[in-house]
């Protein structure tokens, strides 16, 4: 039965004193832990205040360290260390203050609310995005951003941080699998277009917005990556570059006169079903003004109905992008062989 008496042989007084001693120690420890915890926390603060990524970042990372504060976890900053900006060996990469400013008032909290950093980004950014954009352009001017200042995005006050997430391990704007979702969050009409039955492989991520557009501006129209719409299309569709013996003027001028590259319900990404599309330019002589209709006669005699089935006008005019057949005029110059 000794297990019922922890101190066999001890008197009741001794047991009482032992119990008191135990209680005192327990109380003392109870008091000591928070106190010791405070001291230890102070030690923690000192150790947290070590630089994490690069020299001098402790002034920021002592708070913005992603692990000590739940709120901060919603806006993690340290994943920047996984990115090119966080590659310390590259002397060109910036410090925190290089982008966010010295932010003395933010560091020395006065009152209940902490003032924002000198240069906050994101939703709390300055109302004039050009001010913030300067921080980025200080390093990134030139190359693909050569024409940023005159670009439509810049002139419409799009901030760099509106697209780029500098602290994220994967920046949506530069990650091929994420960039489309980012672009269509503003260009909303494209969201439905890229899912239409005739489309480029955008949904699959095999072709993305930045393959054709340079969102930082370019010397071409519509911020195309090349100098013109056609030059951009030719990077993949060089088949239609020619120059052909027999040219189709609309094709030479601008592919987007007939095609909607973002998606269409008409085969070939056409803006409109033939013959309506063709009738927007061509004179109605002979069969060209015929009524479109569901007709299987294939006669195409003047005044008849039809022209709409299968490939419509392209049933005969197969080489509409241009042809290089020097054969008989009736068939060659009209893009039929």
């Amino acid at each position, binding site marked *: 039965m000794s297990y019922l008496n922890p101190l066999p042989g001890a008197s009741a007084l001794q047991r009482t004193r032992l119990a008191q001693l135990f209680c005192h120690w327990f109380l003392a420890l109870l008091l000591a*832990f928070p106190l010791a915890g405070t001291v230890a926390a102070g030690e923690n603060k000192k150790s947290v205040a070590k630089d994490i990524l690069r020299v001098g970042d402790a002034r920021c990372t002592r708070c913005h360290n992603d692990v000590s504060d739940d709120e901060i976890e919603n806006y993690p900053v340290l994943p920047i260390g996984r990115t090119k900006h966080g590659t310390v060996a590259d002397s060109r990469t910036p410090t925190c203050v290089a982008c966010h400013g010295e932010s003395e008032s933010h560091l020395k909290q006065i009152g209940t609310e902490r003032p924002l950093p000198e240069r906050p980004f994101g939703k709390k950014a300055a109302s004039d995005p050009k001010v913030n954009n300067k921080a980025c352009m200080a390093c990134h001017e*030139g190359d693909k951003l050569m024409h940023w200042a005159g670009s439509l995005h810049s002139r419409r006050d799009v901030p760099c941080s509106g697209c780029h997430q500098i602290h994220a391990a994967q920046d949506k704007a530069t990650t091929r699998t994420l960039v489309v979702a980012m672009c269509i969050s503003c260009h909303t009409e494209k969201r439905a277009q890229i899912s239409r039955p005739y489309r480029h*492989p955008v949904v699959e991520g095999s072709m993305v917005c930045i393959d054709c557009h340079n969102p930082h501006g370019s010397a071409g129209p519509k911020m195309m990556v090349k100098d013109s719409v056609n030059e951009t299309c030719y990077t993949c569709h060089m088949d239609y570059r020619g120059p052909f013996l027999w040219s189709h003027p609309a094709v030479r001028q601008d592919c987007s006169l007939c095609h909607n590259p973002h998606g269409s319900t008409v085969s070939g990404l056409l803006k409109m079903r033939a013959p309506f599309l063709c009738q927007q330019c061509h004179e109605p002589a002979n069969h060209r003004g015929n009524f479109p209709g569901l007709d299987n006669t294939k006669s195409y005699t003047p005044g008849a109905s039809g022209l709409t089935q299968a490939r419509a006008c392209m049933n005969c005019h197969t080489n509409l992008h241009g042809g290089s057949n020097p054969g008989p005029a009736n068939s060659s110059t009209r893009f039929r062989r």
Partner: protein
Amino acid sequence: MLMMTKPRSSAHRSFRMLPVALAVGLACNYAIAQDAEQRADALRKDLATPESRIDVGAGVLSGGTRSFGLYNGMNQSIGYGSLDISLIKREEETGTWFRLNGRNLARDNRELRLEHERQGDWAYYVGSRHLTRNDPLQINTGLKGIGTDSLTVSAAAPRRNIQLAVEHDSFTAGLKKFIVGGFEVRLSFKQDEKSGDRLYGQGTPGTMNFLTEPLDRVTRQWELIAAYADPKLQLIGGYSGSSFENKLPSINVAGSIATLSPIAAPPSNQAHQFHLAGGYNFGDSGRSSFKLSRSVATQNSVFVVPPALPGNRETSPGGRVVTTLAYGDLSLRPTARLDLNAHLRFEDRDDQSKTAQYTAAAIPTATTALTTAGLTGINVPRSLKQLKGQLEAGYQLEDGYRLIGSLEQEQVQRNIPVQYRRVAYRERTDETQARVEIKRMLSETLNGGLAYIHSWRGGSDYVNDTYNQQTNQVNPLIWANRRREKLRLSADWIPEESWSVQFRGDASVDSYLGRNLGPRRGEGLLLSTDVAYQYSEKWKLSAWLVQERNLADQTTRSDVLAGTLGDNVIWRARLRNTTSAWGFGIKGRPTGALEVGAELGASADTAEHGIQRIGGTGTDPLNPSSLPTYAYHQVTFKLFADYALDRSSGLRADLMLDRRRNNDWTWQNFTYSDGTTVTIPERQNVVFIGASYHYRWR
């Protein structure tokens, strides 16, 4: 003695114990804190260290997959594997990266890319990609020789079902090296091989043949670039070359319409460009940039047949287009409230291709009209000059208003082909656009803008066509006189940190003026709303809605009384395209280890044709309003759950339901002359269930 000792209070005893207990507690706490600190350090290091990841999985697809599998490599109801890899390593001492990214490696749309880079010093990469486009059409044909450039059309041949596909195999490689003093050189190369077959055709009134276009083509692009950058001046320039090689330059067709064989496939061609671009910063906020380039594109492929005109001994077209581009822009902020921007762009596509008479036809003289066929047999080079300039000013007013005004002028100049026309032609078009916009930061939570755009396009007189008077009645879309009015409203509302609402509305009207055939009016309306809501730290919701409507109102004439200029039957088409789409998404983390998400999206496209006779005296035997409305509907539901097994690994499950419906009548009741039929499934319902395992490491 102990009994003699004055009894002390418990509190006193506790106080006496405190220093000792404090020391013990401190020691314990310090050890715990140190341990916590070490873990925090490790976590911080993890967060700041590049992470690699591999995903391995499998899934099953069932249902009608033709449209669903257009590009994703899943066009059959079978099981599929999945393998994605992202291997990233960085040497911290040198800033040297090694990246190996592979996506969809177990599928037909796989991509692999390897990069090795010492950041700020040198880099090189190689990559490859395979992509298959599976044509969703179901074709039943007796055509022989598919896959080759020698096809035989035969109505008697037994027909079978085929599905066409085009495969792309790409290879890319490149390197760059930073040189001291802000200089950098880059070299890149890309090759894309295209193979397979796609839908093609051959026709003459009364006979339409189904053909396939065999593809065996190689596209190559290469570039040598030198760049310089300092805080004031940046320059980039070099040489870009490209070539297109068609290994099957002609398609020979036997068995039908002998006069239309061979068909010339796109000819091999090449282009070379030298370019220089630069930018210069002046003052605190002034910048100017420019680009100059000169390209020469040539095409000298051997003709697939000799020229039809006896005596013409040309063997190739001698195609040559020289393109010159000059672009410049200037941005200034003369005061803190005023922004100015100006840009000017000039492009000259000078078609210097050789001209010759290739087919037998009389050449019109200065006094005679075109030939009775309207053809001369002489090829027509097409040159184009575009000059576009824009001035824009933005001024910050009081109370958060910002006023923007811009003026844009574009002139397009074309060469006039005297020999042959089939459309109304004008040498020059001019378009002027004025834009005024007012934006306001309505409050810290609401921003809005309203823009009005007016543009006017006119140009030189139409060239009179003396052969075909009907040409002189058409107002072609691409260079018709046009007045455009556009209104744009946008608003961003962030009522609180957890909410954001974005709205955009565009409305436009185009009026085509002048001639009575061709486009008359265009209308466009776009309304879209996006909502994002962070319900809690663990749950996010999003929803979006888009409505887009476009109208093209155009007229033409059915040439019942062939060759005359009588009224005939004038008819109109009011082509109305409507797109309605919406989506809803939810993503959350119900437990620390489990992340779930769902998306439901739907879209509906309709095309109405609104054909009606509006005038004329001729008699048309057919019902002109018989074209049915086209409709396409798609609903997609996606669900995923990702469960973290530990900090490094997890399991993911995916479910996707995709439903598509269409009434595409393009191929309905249509049979090619050889009996070939083409169909598109009206309904396609797809279910995909997949599971994968992912592992991350640093």
